[in-house]
Protein backbone atom coordinates (compact mmCIF):
# COMPACT_ATOMS: atom_id res chain seq x y z
CA UNK A 1 0.00 0.00 0.00
CA UNK A 2 2.62 2.53 1.10
CA UNK A 3 6.38 2.37 1.07
CA UNK A 4 8.60 4.89 2.82
CA UNK A 5 12.19 4.73 1.69
CA UNK A 6 14.91 6.64 3.55
CA UNK A 7 12.38 9.37 4.32
CA UNK A 8 13.65 12.45 6.12
CA UNK A 9 12.27 15.94 6.58
CA UNK A 10 14.28 18.96 7.60
CA UNK A 11 13.44 22.56 8.46
CA UNK A 12 16.60 24.66 8.43
CA UNK A 13 19.18 22.51 10.18
CA UNK A 14 16.72 20.51 12.27
CA UNK A 15 15.67 17.07 11.14
CA UNK A 16 12.06 16.60 12.24
CA UNK A 17 12.09 12.99 11.05
CA UNK A 18 14.79 10.94 9.37
CA UNK A 19 15.79 7.43 8.32
CA UNK A 20 12.25 6.16 8.03
CA UNK A 21 12.04 2.88 6.12
CA UNK A 22 8.63 1.27 6.44
CA UNK A 23 6.37 -0.76 4.22
CA UNK A 24 2.74 -0.64 5.21
CA UNK A 25 0.52 -3.46 4.03
CA UNK A 26 -3.06 -3.03 2.98
CA UNK A 27 -5.59 -3.79 5.71
CA UNK A 28 -3.31 -3.17 8.69
CA UNK A 29 -3.72 -0.80 11.60
CA UNK A 30 -0.49 1.03 12.30
CA UNK A 31 0.18 3.05 15.40
CA UNK A 32 2.84 5.72 15.59
CA UNK A 33 3.91 6.26 19.20
CA UNK A 34 6.51 8.42 20.88
CA UNK A 35 6.91 11.49 23.11
CA UNK A 36 5.66 14.97 22.29
CA UNK A 37 7.67 16.44 19.46
CA UNK A 38 8.93 13.04 18.30
CA UNK A 39 7.78 13.75 14.75
CA UNK A 40 4.55 11.75 14.71
CA UNK A 41 2.46 14.48 13.10
CA UNK A 42 5.26 15.39 10.68
CA UNK A 43 5.47 11.78 9.54
CA UNK A 44 1.71 11.65 9.00
CA UNK A 45 1.80 14.90 7.03
CA UNK A 46 4.62 13.51 4.90
CA UNK A 47 2.61 10.36 4.17
CA UNK A 48 -0.42 12.50 3.34
CA UNK A 49 1.54 14.35 0.66
CA UNK A 50 1.12 17.71 2.38
CA UNK A 51 4.85 17.97 3.11
CA UNK A 52 7.53 17.06 0.61
CA UNK A 53 10.27 14.87 2.10
CA UNK A 54 13.76 16.40 2.10
CA UNK A 55 15.26 12.99 1.44
CA UNK A 56 13.84 9.69 0.25
CA UNK A 57 10.55 8.84 -1.34
CA UNK A 58 7.03 7.90 -0.34
CA UNK A 59 5.01 5.72 -2.66
CA UNK A 60 1.27 5.16 -2.42
CA UNK A 61 0.09 2.21 -4.54
CA UNK A 62 3.53 2.13 -6.21
CA UNK A 63 3.28 5.76 -7.37
CA UNK A 64 5.28 8.57 -5.73
CA UNK A 65 2.88 10.54 -3.55
CA UNK A 66 3.79 13.93 -5.02
CA UNK A 67 2.82 12.73 -8.51
CA UNK A 68 -0.87 12.65 -7.52
CA UNK A 69 -3.29 15.50 -8.19
CA UNK A 70 -4.78 16.84 -4.91
CA UNK A 71 -8.24 15.64 -5.87
CA UNK A 72 -7.07 12.18 -6.92
CA UNK A 73 -5.12 11.89 -3.68
CA UNK A 74 -8.11 13.01 -1.64
CA UNK A 75 -10.10 10.03 -2.93
CA UNK A 76 -7.32 7.69 -1.78
CA UNK A 77 -6.39 9.04 1.61
CA UNK A 78 -8.00 11.13 4.31
CA UNK A 79 -6.32 12.97 7.13
CA UNK A 80 -7.67 13.77 10.56
CA UNK A 81 -6.05 16.86 12.02
CA UNK A 82 -5.31 17.31 15.69
CA UNK A 83 -6.48 20.87 16.08
CA UNK A 84 -9.30 22.50 14.25
CA UNK A 85 -11.10 25.78 14.29
CA UNK A 86 -13.95 27.11 12.27
CA UNK A 87 -15.27 30.65 12.22
CA UNK A 88 -18.33 30.16 10.07
CA UNK A 89 -21.76 28.92 11.10
CA UNK A 90 -21.71 25.58 9.26
CA UNK A 91 -23.92 22.81 10.61
CA UNK A 92 -22.45 19.46 11.60
CA UNK A 93 -23.98 17.77 8.57
CA UNK A 94 -22.48 20.35 6.22
CA UNK A 95 -19.05 19.73 7.74
CA UNK A 96 -19.45 15.99 7.25
CA UNK A 97 -20.57 16.53 3.66
CA UNK A 98 -17.28 18.38 2.98
CA UNK A 99 -15.86 14.85 2.91
CA UNK A 100 -17.57 14.41 -0.45
CA UNK A 101 -15.67 17.34 -1.96
CA UNK A 102 -13.17 15.18 -3.91
CA UNK A 103 -16.05 13.42 -5.66
CA UNK A 104 -18.21 16.41 -6.54
CA UNK A 105 -16.43 18.52 -9.17
CA UNK A 106 -18.37 21.57 -8.09
CA UNK A 107 -21.78 19.94 -8.41
CA UNK A 108 -24.36 19.68 -5.66
CA UNK A 109 -24.38 16.76 -3.27
CA UNK A 110 -26.74 13.99 -4.29
CA UNK A 111 -28.95 11.78 -2.15
CA UNK A 112 -26.17 9.18 -2.21
CA UNK A 113 -23.71 11.65 -0.70
CA UNK A 114 -26.26 12.48 1.95
CA UNK A 115 -26.78 8.79 2.75
CA UNK A 116 -23.03 8.25 3.10
CA UNK A 117 -22.74 11.25 5.43
CA UNK A 118 -25.70 10.10 7.48
CA UNK A 119 -24.28 6.60 7.88
CA UNK A 120 -20.90 8.05 8.93
CA UNK A 121 -22.58 10.22 11.56
CA UNK A 122 -24.43 7.18 12.86
CA UNK A 123 -21.19 5.17 13.11
CA UNK A 124 -19.65 7.73 15.48
CA UNK A 125 -22.95 8.26 17.36
CA UNK A 126 -23.14 11.85 16.24
CA UNK A 127 -26.36 11.73 14.23
CA UNK A 128 -28.31 13.45 16.97
CA UNK A 129 -26.41 16.68 16.49
CA UNK A 130 -26.40 16.68 12.70
CA UNK A 131 -28.37 19.92 12.66
CA UNK A 132 -26.35 21.73 15.32
CA UNK A 133 -23.83 24.38 14.37
CA UNK A 134 -20.38 22.81 14.39
CA UNK A 135 -18.69 25.64 16.35
CA UNK A 136 -21.11 25.05 19.24
CA UNK A 137 -20.06 21.41 19.71
CA UNK A 138 -17.88 20.29 22.61
CA UNK A 139 -14.32 19.12 21.88
CA UNK A 140 -15.27 15.46 22.02
CA UNK A 141 -18.37 15.90 19.88
CA UNK A 142 -16.37 17.84 17.30
CA UNK A 143 -13.74 15.07 17.21
CA UNK A 144 -16.39 12.49 16.41
CA UNK A 145 -17.87 14.70 13.71
CA UNK A 146 -14.42 15.08 12.15
CA UNK A 147 -14.06 11.31 12.10
CA UNK A 148 -17.45 11.09 10.42
CA UNK A 149 -16.15 13.54 7.83
CA UNK A 150 -13.15 11.43 6.87
CA UNK A 151 -15.33 8.31 6.80
CA UNK A 152 -17.51 10.19 4.33
CA UNK A 153 -14.40 10.83 2.25
CA UNK A 154 -14.27 7.01 1.79
CA UNK A 155 -10.51 6.67 1.26
CA UNK A 156 -8.35 3.52 1.19
CA UNK A 157 -5.90 5.02 3.64
CA UNK A 158 -6.85 6.81 6.87
CA UNK A 159 -4.23 9.02 8.50
CA UNK A 160 -5.30 9.96 12.00
CA UNK A 161 -3.47 12.38 14.24
CA UNK A 162 -4.48 11.38 17.75
CA UNK A 163 -8.11 10.59 17.05
CA UNK A 164 -8.79 9.63 20.67
CA UNK A 165 -7.88 13.03 22.12
CA UNK A 166 -10.75 14.74 23.95
CA UNK A 167 -12.73 11.50 24.00
CA UNK A 168 -14.07 9.64 27.00
CA UNK A 169 -13.12 5.93 27.30
CA UNK A 170 -16.36 4.79 25.71
CA UNK A 171 -15.82 6.91 22.61
CA UNK A 172 -12.08 6.13 22.51
CA UNK A 173 -12.87 2.44 22.31
CA UNK A 174 -15.67 3.12 19.87
CA UNK A 175 -13.39 5.05 17.49
CA UNK A 176 -10.64 2.42 17.66
CA UNK A 177 -13.19 -0.36 17.13
CA UNK A 178 -14.29 1.59 14.10
CA UNK A 179 -10.67 1.70 12.90
CA UNK A 180 -10.47 -2.07 13.36
CA UNK A 181 -13.66 -2.57 11.35
CA UNK A 182 -12.34 -0.32 8.64
CA UNK A 183 -9.12 -2.36 8.49
CA UNK A 184 -11.06 -5.63 8.35
CA UNK A 185 -12.81 -4.15 5.33
CA UNK A 186 -9.44 -3.94 3.57
CA UNK A 187 -8.64 -0.30 4.32
CA UNK A 188 -5.44 0.84 5.96
CA UNK A 189 -5.21 3.01 9.07
CA UNK A 190 -2.15 4.85 10.35
CA UNK A 191 -2.72 6.67 13.59
CA UNK A 192 -0.53 8.71 15.87
CA UNK A 193 -1.53 7.84 19.40
CA UNK A 194 -0.32 8.77 22.88
CA UNK A 195 -2.08 6.11 24.87
CA UNK A 196 0.33 3.15 24.76
CA UNK A 197 -2.23 0.68 26.08
CA UNK A 198 -4.82 1.57 23.48
CA UNK A 199 -2.03 1.30 20.91
CA UNK A 200 -1.10 -2.10 22.30
CA UNK A 201 -4.71 -3.30 22.26
CA UNK A 202 -5.59 -2.20 18.76
CA UNK A 203 -2.53 -1.78 16.54
CA UNK A 204 -1.24 -4.58 14.33
CA UNK A 205 2.10 -2.81 13.99
CA UNK A 206 3.73 -0.01 15.94
CA UNK A 207 6.41 2.50 15.06
CA UNK A 208 8.18 4.04 18.05
CA UNK A 209 9.77 7.42 17.34
CA UNK A 210 12.16 9.52 19.39
CA UNK A 211 13.36 12.88 18.10
CA UNK A 212 12.34 11.90 14.61
CA UNK A 213 14.33 8.69 14.56
CA UNK A 214 12.70 5.25 14.60
CA UNK A 215 13.59 3.35 17.80
CA UNK A 216 11.56 0.23 17.11
CA UNK A 217 9.09 -1.07 14.59
CA UNK A 218 6.92 -4.18 14.65
CA UNK A 219 4.04 -5.80 16.53
CA UNK A 220 3.23 -4.31 19.97
CA UNK A 221 5.03 -7.06 21.93
CA UNK A 222 8.24 -6.27 20.02
CA UNK A 223 8.00 -2.51 20.39
CA UNK A 224 6.55 -2.00 23.85
CA UNK A 225 9.46 -3.43 25.84
CA UNK A 226 10.79 -2.06 29.09
CA UNK A 227 14.17 -0.98 27.70
CA UNK A 228 12.88 0.69 24.57
CA UNK A 229 10.14 2.57 26.41
CA UNK A 230 12.47 3.78 29.16
CA UNK A 231 15.02 4.89 26.59
CA UNK A 232 12.43 6.71 24.49
CA UNK A 233 10.47 8.46 27.22
CA UNK A 234 13.27 8.85 29.74
CA UNK A 235 11.25 7.43 32.65
CA UNK A 236 11.00 3.89 34.07
CA UNK A 237 8.11 1.69 32.99
CA UNK A 238 6.38 -1.46 34.17
CA UNK A 239 5.47 -3.80 31.35
CA UNK A 240 3.03 -6.60 32.21
CA UNK A 241 1.16 -9.04 30.11
CA UNK A 242 -2.56 -8.33 29.89
CA UNK A 243 -4.75 -11.41 30.35
CA UNK A 244 -5.77 -10.99 26.70
CA UNK A 245 -2.15 -11.38 25.63
CA UNK A 246 -1.00 -7.91 24.67
CA UNK A 247 1.63 -5.88 26.59
CA UNK A 248 0.22 -3.78 29.39
CA UNK A 249 2.29 -0.68 30.03
CA UNK A 250 2.45 1.66 33.02
CA UNK A 251 4.93 4.38 33.91
CA UNK A 252 6.59 3.23 37.11
CA UNK A 253 6.61 5.21 40.37
CA UNK A 254 9.98 3.74 41.24
CA UNK A 255 12.31 6.47 40.04
CA UNK A 256 15.61 4.82 40.94
Amino acid at each position, binding site marked *: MIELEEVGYRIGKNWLVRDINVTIEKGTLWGIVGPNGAGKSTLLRLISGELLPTTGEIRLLDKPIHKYEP*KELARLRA*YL*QQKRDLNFPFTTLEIVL*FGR*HPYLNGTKETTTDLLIAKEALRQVEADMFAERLY*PTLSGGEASRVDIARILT*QAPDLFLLDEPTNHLDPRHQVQILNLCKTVCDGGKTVITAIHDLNLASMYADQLLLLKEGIPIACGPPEVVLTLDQLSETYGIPFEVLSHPDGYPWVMPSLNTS
Partner: protein
Amino acid sequence: MTLFVSVLRKMQKRTKILLTLIGLLPISICVAAGIGAYQILPWRIPEILFFREDGFAVLVHVRFPRVILSAAVGAMLAISGATLQGIFRNPLADPGLIGVTAGAGLGATLWIVLIGGGALGVWGLPIAAFGCGILVTIGVWKIAEEQGRVRTLTLLLAGIALNSFAGAGIGLMTFLADDEQLRSLTFWLLGGFGGATWHVVFVTLPIAAIGLLVLSRQAAALNAMSLGESEAYHLGVSTETLKRWAVFGVALTVGAAVSAAGGIGFVGLVVPHLLRLLGGADHRYVLPGSAVGGAILLVSADLFSRTVVAPAELPVGIVTALIGGPFFLWLLLKFKREVFL
Protein backbone atom coordinates in the same frame (compact mmCIF):
# COMPACT_ATOMS: atom_id res chain seq x y z
CA MET B 1 -35.82 10.42 7.29
CA THR B 2 -36.09 13.55 9.39
CA LEU B 3 -32.54 14.40 8.38
CA PHE B 4 -33.48 14.38 4.72
CA VAL B 5 -36.50 16.53 5.33
CA SER B 6 -34.46 19.11 7.21
CA VAL B 7 -31.67 19.14 4.60
CA LEU B 8 -34.25 19.54 1.88
CA ARG B 9 -35.89 22.35 3.80
CA LYS B 10 -32.56 24.11 4.21
CA MET B 11 -31.81 23.82 0.49
CA GLN B 12 -35.26 25.08 -0.32
CA LYS B 13 -34.78 27.97 2.06
CA ARG B 14 -31.55 28.98 0.32
CA THR B 15 -33.09 28.64 -3.10
CA LYS B 16 -35.97 30.77 -1.89
CA ILE B 17 -33.62 33.45 -0.57
CA LEU B 18 -31.63 33.49 -3.82
CA LEU B 19 -34.77 33.64 -5.96
CA THR B 20 -36.22 36.43 -3.81
CA LEU B 21 -33.04 38.45 -4.19
CA ILE B 22 -32.93 37.84 -7.94
CA GLY B 23 -36.54 38.99 -8.14
CA LEU B 24 -35.86 42.07 -6.05
CA LEU B 25 -32.92 43.23 -8.16
CA PRO B 26 -34.83 44.33 -11.30
CA ILE B 27 -37.53 45.82 -9.09
CA SER B 28 -35.00 47.89 -7.17
CA ILE B 29 -33.33 48.92 -10.43
CA CYS B 30 -36.63 50.09 -11.91
CA VAL B 31 -37.70 51.91 -8.76
CA ALA B 32 -34.32 53.63 -8.47
CA ALA B 33 -34.37 54.53 -12.16
CA GLY B 34 -37.80 56.09 -11.74
CA ILE B 35 -37.15 58.28 -8.74
CA GLY B 36 -35.43 61.63 -8.97
CA ALA B 37 -36.06 65.22 -9.96
CA TYR B 38 -38.12 63.93 -12.87
CA GLN B 39 -40.45 61.27 -11.45
CA ILE B 40 -41.20 58.17 -13.50
CA LEU B 41 -43.50 55.41 -12.30
CA PRO B 42 -41.48 52.17 -12.27
CA TRP B 43 -44.11 50.07 -14.09
CA ARG B 44 -44.26 52.61 -16.90
CA ILE B 45 -40.55 52.16 -17.65
CA PRO B 46 -40.90 49.38 -20.27
CA GLU B 47 -43.58 51.38 -22.05
CA ILE B 48 -41.46 54.55 -22.04
CA LEU B 49 -38.44 52.69 -23.33
CA PHE B 50 -40.42 50.96 -26.07
CA PHE B 51 -42.44 53.94 -27.35
CA ARG B 52 -39.77 56.55 -26.58
CA GLU B 53 -42.28 58.59 -24.59
CA ASP B 54 -41.54 61.53 -22.28
CA GLY B 55 -38.75 60.67 -19.90
CA PHE B 56 -36.91 58.43 -22.35
CA ALA B 57 -33.88 60.71 -22.41
CA VAL B 58 -33.72 60.98 -18.62
CA LEU B 59 -33.99 57.23 -18.23
CA VAL B 60 -31.50 56.25 -20.90
CA HIS B 61 -28.91 58.98 -20.53
CA VAL B 62 -29.03 59.74 -16.82
CA ARG B 63 -30.71 57.12 -14.67
CA PHE B 64 -29.87 53.78 -16.23
CA PRO B 65 -26.11 54.13 -16.51
CA ARG B 66 -26.00 55.24 -12.91
CA VAL B 67 -28.29 52.54 -11.54
CA ILE B 68 -26.63 49.76 -13.54
CA LEU B 69 -23.18 50.92 -12.50
CA SER B 70 -24.18 50.99 -8.85
CA ALA B 71 -25.60 47.46 -9.17
CA ALA B 72 -22.37 46.18 -10.75
CA VAL B 73 -20.18 47.87 -8.15
CA GLY B 74 -22.33 46.54 -5.30
CA ALA B 75 -22.18 43.01 -6.69
CA MET B 76 -18.40 43.16 -7.12
CA LEU B 77 -17.70 44.56 -3.65
CA ALA B 78 -19.98 42.09 -1.88
CA ILE B 79 -18.76 38.94 -3.64
CA SER B 80 -15.15 40.05 -3.08
CA GLY B 81 -15.81 40.55 0.61
CA ALA B 82 -17.37 37.08 0.86
CA THR B 83 -14.42 35.54 -1.00
CA LEU B 84 -11.74 37.13 1.15
CA GLN B 85 -13.64 36.20 4.29
CA GLY B 86 -13.47 32.62 3.05
CA ILE B 87 -9.78 32.78 2.16
CA PHE B 88 -8.79 34.38 5.45
CA ARG B 89 -11.33 32.23 7.31
CA ASN B 90 -12.45 35.32 9.13
CA PRO B 91 -15.95 36.80 8.85
CA LEU B 92 -14.52 40.26 9.53
CA ALA B 93 -12.26 40.36 6.47
CA ASP B 94 -12.89 43.27 4.14
CA PRO B 95 -12.28 43.45 0.37
CA GLY B 96 -9.66 46.10 1.08
CA LEU B 97 -7.42 43.66 2.95
CA ILE B 98 -5.20 42.75 0.01
CA GLY B 99 -4.34 46.38 -0.66
CA VAL B 100 -6.40 47.02 -3.76
CA THR B 101 -8.70 49.65 -2.23
CA ALA B 102 -5.92 51.66 -0.62
CA GLY B 103 -3.77 51.26 -3.74
CA ALA B 104 -6.54 52.57 -5.95
CA GLY B 105 -7.10 55.43 -3.52
CA LEU B 106 -3.42 56.26 -3.69
CA GLY B 107 -3.47 56.16 -7.49
CA ALA B 108 -6.48 58.47 -7.56
CA THR B 109 -5.06 61.00 -5.09
CA LEU B 110 -1.68 61.02 -6.86
CA TRP B 111 -3.50 61.70 -10.11
CA ILE B 112 -5.67 64.47 -8.67
CA VAL B 113 -2.90 66.27 -6.82
CA LEU B 114 0.18 65.75 -8.98
CA ILE B 115 -1.21 65.47 -12.49
CA GLY B 116 -4.53 67.20 -12.26
CA GLY B 117 -7.98 65.68 -12.46
CA GLY B 118 -8.57 66.70 -16.06
CA ALA B 119 -5.64 65.03 -17.82
CA LEU B 120 -6.55 62.21 -20.26
CA GLY B 121 -10.16 63.36 -20.02
CA VAL B 122 -12.55 61.28 -17.94
CA TRP B 123 -10.36 58.18 -18.18
CA GLY B 124 -7.21 59.41 -16.44
CA LEU B 125 -8.47 59.08 -12.90
CA PRO B 126 -10.03 55.61 -13.13
CA ILE B 127 -7.05 54.23 -15.04
CA ALA B 128 -4.63 55.61 -12.45
CA ALA B 129 -6.78 54.19 -9.65
CA PHE B 130 -7.20 50.76 -11.25
CA GLY B 131 -3.53 50.47 -12.20
CA CYS B 132 -2.27 51.49 -8.80
CA GLY B 133 -4.75 49.20 -7.02
CA ILE B 134 -3.61 46.21 -9.08
CA LEU B 135 0.06 47.13 -8.59
CA VAL B 136 -0.27 47.26 -4.81
CA THR B 137 -2.06 43.90 -4.79
CA ILE B 138 0.68 42.37 -6.92
CA GLY B 139 3.14 43.79 -4.40
CA VAL B 140 1.25 42.20 -1.52
CA TRP B 141 1.21 38.86 -3.38
CA LYS B 142 4.91 38.99 -4.22
CA ILE B 143 5.88 39.80 -0.64
CA ALA B 144 3.84 36.86 0.63
CA GLU B 145 5.12 34.46 -2.02
CA GLU B 146 7.87 32.07 -1.02
CA GLN B 147 9.01 29.25 -3.28
CA GLY B 148 5.79 29.37 -5.23
CA ARG B 149 3.64 29.15 -2.12
CA VAL B 150 1.70 31.91 -0.45
CA ARG B 151 0.96 31.69 3.24
CA THR B 152 -2.40 33.19 4.09
CA LEU B 153 -1.11 34.83 7.23
CA THR B 154 1.80 36.47 5.39
CA LEU B 155 -0.64 37.62 2.73
CA LEU B 156 -2.74 39.26 5.42
CA LEU B 157 0.25 40.93 7.09
CA ALA B 158 1.71 42.11 3.77
CA GLY B 159 -1.72 43.54 2.98
CA ILE B 160 -1.81 45.43 6.27
CA ALA B 161 1.73 46.78 5.72
CA LEU B 162 1.10 48.01 2.17
CA ASN B 163 -2.30 49.35 3.18
CA SER B 164 -0.63 51.58 5.73
CA PHE B 165 1.96 52.68 3.14
CA ALA B 166 -0.78 53.59 0.71
CA GLY B 167 -2.66 55.30 3.53
CA ALA B 168 0.42 57.38 4.30
CA GLY B 169 0.68 58.32 0.62
CA ILE B 170 -2.97 59.35 0.55
CA GLY B 171 -2.41 61.41 3.72
CA LEU B 172 0.61 63.12 2.19
CA MET B 173 -1.30 63.98 -0.97
CA THR B 174 -4.18 65.33 1.12
CA PHE B 175 -1.67 67.51 2.93
CA LEU B 176 -0.20 68.80 -0.33
CA ALA B 177 -3.53 69.40 -2.06
CA ASP B 178 -4.98 72.87 -2.57
CA ASP B 179 -8.60 73.63 -1.69
CA GLU B 180 -10.11 72.57 -4.97
CA GLN B 181 -8.07 69.39 -5.20
CA LEU B 182 -8.99 68.61 -1.62
CA ARG B 183 -12.66 68.81 -2.49
CA SER B 184 -12.51 66.46 -5.45
CA LEU B 185 -10.20 64.21 -3.50
CA THR B 186 -12.56 63.94 -0.54
CA PHE B 187 -15.51 63.37 -2.78
CA TRP B 188 -13.67 60.66 -4.64
CA LEU B 189 -12.51 58.92 -1.49
CA LEU B 190 -16.03 58.84 -0.06
CA GLY B 191 -17.38 57.32 -3.24
CA GLY B 192 -20.28 58.13 -5.50
CA PHE B 193 -21.92 57.45 -8.83
CA GLY B 194 -22.21 61.06 -9.98
CA GLY B 195 -19.86 60.41 -12.87
CA ALA B 196 -21.69 57.38 -14.24
CA THR B 197 -21.92 57.28 -18.03
CA TRP B 198 -22.52 54.46 -20.48
CA HIS B 199 -18.80 54.52 -21.27
CA VAL B 200 -17.96 53.69 -17.67
CA VAL B 201 -20.71 51.06 -17.60
CA PHE B 202 -19.42 49.40 -20.76
CA VAL B 203 -15.90 49.19 -19.37
CA THR B 204 -17.02 48.03 -15.93
CA LEU B 205 -19.59 45.39 -16.90
CA PRO B 206 -17.22 42.98 -18.70
CA ILE B 207 -14.75 43.19 -15.80
CA ALA B 208 -17.62 42.54 -13.40
CA ALA B 209 -18.75 39.56 -15.47
CA ILE B 210 -15.28 38.00 -15.57
CA GLY B 211 -14.71 38.69 -11.87
CA LEU B 212 -18.05 37.29 -10.74
CA LEU B 213 -17.52 34.18 -12.86
CA VAL B 214 -14.00 33.58 -11.53
CA LEU B 215 -14.99 34.15 -7.91
CA SER B 216 -18.21 32.16 -7.89
CA ARG B 217 -16.33 29.15 -9.28
CA GLN B 218 -14.22 29.03 -6.10
CA ALA B 219 -17.22 28.47 -3.83
CA ALA B 220 -16.85 24.72 -3.19
CA ALA B 221 -13.11 25.04 -2.55
CA LEU B 222 -13.77 27.93 -0.15
CA ASN B 223 -16.09 25.66 1.82
CA ALA B 224 -13.26 23.19 2.35
CA MET B 225 -10.91 26.08 3.08
CA SER B 226 -13.04 27.17 6.03
CA LEU B 227 -11.70 24.14 7.95
CA GLY B 228 -8.14 25.36 7.42
CA GLU B 229 -5.63 25.33 4.64
CA SER B 230 -4.15 21.89 5.21
CA GLU B 231 -7.62 20.40 5.75
CA ALA B 232 -8.61 21.87 2.42
CA TYR B 233 -5.56 20.28 0.81
CA HIS B 234 -6.47 16.93 2.33
CA LEU B 235 -9.94 17.29 0.91
CA GLY B 236 -8.45 17.65 -2.56
CA VAL B 237 -8.32 21.42 -2.99
CA SER B 238 -5.31 22.91 -4.79
CA THR B 239 -4.97 25.64 -2.22
CA GLU B 240 -2.35 27.65 -4.13
CA THR B 241 -4.52 27.73 -7.24
CA LEU B 242 -7.52 28.71 -5.13
CA LYS B 243 -5.65 31.61 -3.52
CA ARG B 244 -4.30 32.80 -6.85
CA TRP B 245 -7.73 32.87 -8.51
CA ALA B 246 -9.36 34.42 -5.47
CA VAL B 247 -6.82 37.25 -5.20
CA PHE B 248 -6.94 37.76 -8.98
CA GLY B 249 -10.74 37.98 -8.95
CA VAL B 250 -10.86 40.27 -5.93
CA ALA B 251 -8.17 42.62 -7.28
CA LEU B 252 -9.94 42.80 -10.63
CA THR B 253 -13.43 43.46 -9.27
CA VAL B 254 -12.53 45.70 -6.36
CA GLY B 255 -10.08 47.61 -8.57
CA ALA B 256 -12.83 48.17 -11.12
CA ALA B 257 -15.38 49.05 -8.44
CA VAL B 258 -13.14 51.60 -6.75
CA SER B 259 -12.07 53.11 -10.06
CA ALA B 260 -15.66 53.52 -11.17
CA ALA B 261 -17.12 54.81 -7.94
CA GLY B 262 -14.43 55.61 -5.37
CA GLY B 263 -14.06 54.01 -1.99
CA ILE B 264 -17.38 52.63 -0.82
CA GLY B 265 -17.08 50.82 2.47
CA PHE B 266 -19.25 48.36 4.32
CA VAL B 267 -20.92 46.60 1.39
CA GLY B 268 -18.29 43.87 1.29
CA LEU B 269 -18.58 43.28 5.01
CA VAL B 270 -22.27 43.53 5.75
CA VAL B 271 -23.82 41.73 2.79
CA PRO B 272 -22.07 38.34 3.19
CA HIS B 273 -22.87 38.50 6.90
CA LEU B 274 -26.52 39.07 6.23
CA LEU B 275 -26.60 36.16 3.79
CA ARG B 276 -24.95 33.86 6.34
CA LEU B 277 -27.43 34.85 9.02
CA LEU B 278 -30.34 34.18 6.68
CA GLY B 279 -29.29 30.85 5.19
CA GLY B 280 -26.03 29.53 6.62
CA ALA B 281 -22.40 29.61 5.59
CA ASP B 282 -22.24 27.46 2.42
CA HIS B 283 -20.20 29.53 -0.03
CA ARG B 284 -22.09 28.08 -2.98
CA TYR B 285 -25.02 30.08 -1.67
CA VAL B 286 -23.21 32.97 0.04
CA LEU B 287 -21.17 34.04 -3.03
CA PRO B 288 -24.00 34.40 -5.57
CA GLY B 289 -26.33 35.68 -2.86
CA SER B 290 -23.82 38.36 -1.87
CA ALA B 291 -23.43 39.45 -5.48
CA VAL B 292 -27.16 40.00 -5.93
CA GLY B 293 -27.64 41.37 -2.42
CA GLY B 294 -24.74 43.80 -2.83
CA ALA B 295 -26.24 45.04 -6.08
CA ILE B 296 -29.60 45.69 -4.42
CA LEU B 297 -27.99 47.37 -1.42
CA LEU B 298 -25.90 49.75 -3.46
CA VAL B 299 -28.72 50.62 -5.87
CA SER B 300 -30.85 51.53 -2.85
CA ALA B 301 -28.02 53.39 -1.10
CA ASP B 302 -27.34 55.42 -4.22
CA LEU B 303 -31.02 56.22 -4.59
CA PHE B 304 -31.00 57.48 -1.01
CA SER B 305 -27.79 59.46 -1.50
CA ARG B 306 -29.10 61.43 -4.46
CA THR B 307 -32.61 62.07 -3.18
CA VAL B 308 -32.27 62.77 0.54
CA VAL B 309 -30.63 66.21 0.18
CA ALA B 310 -31.71 66.86 -3.45
CA PRO B 311 -30.69 68.71 -5.49
CA ALA B 312 -27.34 68.08 -3.75
CA GLU B 313 -25.89 64.60 -3.34
CA LEU B 314 -24.41 62.80 -0.38
CA PRO B 315 -21.36 60.64 -1.12
CA VAL B 316 -22.72 57.11 -1.27
CA GLY B 317 -19.96 55.84 1.06
CA ILE B 318 -21.50 57.91 3.84
CA VAL B 319 -24.89 56.39 3.15
CA THR B 320 -23.63 52.79 3.20
CA ALA B 321 -21.88 53.43 6.50
CA LEU B 322 -24.90 55.27 7.87
CA ILE B 323 -27.39 52.53 6.98
CA GLY B 324 -24.91 49.70 7.29
CA GLY B 325 -23.55 50.47 10.75
CA PRO B 326 -26.77 50.42 12.78
CA PHE B 327 -28.17 47.59 10.65
CA PHE B 328 -25.09 45.49 11.30
CA LEU B 329 -25.34 46.25 15.00
CA TRP B 330 -28.97 45.20 15.04
CA LEU B 331 -28.08 41.94 13.32
CA LEU B 332 -25.33 41.29 15.83
CA LEU B 333 -27.61 41.84 18.79
CA LYS B 334 -30.44 39.83 17.35
CA PHE B 335 -28.36 36.82 16.33
CA LYS B 336 -25.67 37.17 18.98
CA ARG B 337 -25.38 33.49 19.64
CA GLU B 338 -25.05 32.46 16.03
CA VAL B 339 -22.42 34.99 15.00
CA PHE B 340 -18.82 34.00 15.42
CA LEU B 341 -16.29 36.75 15.63
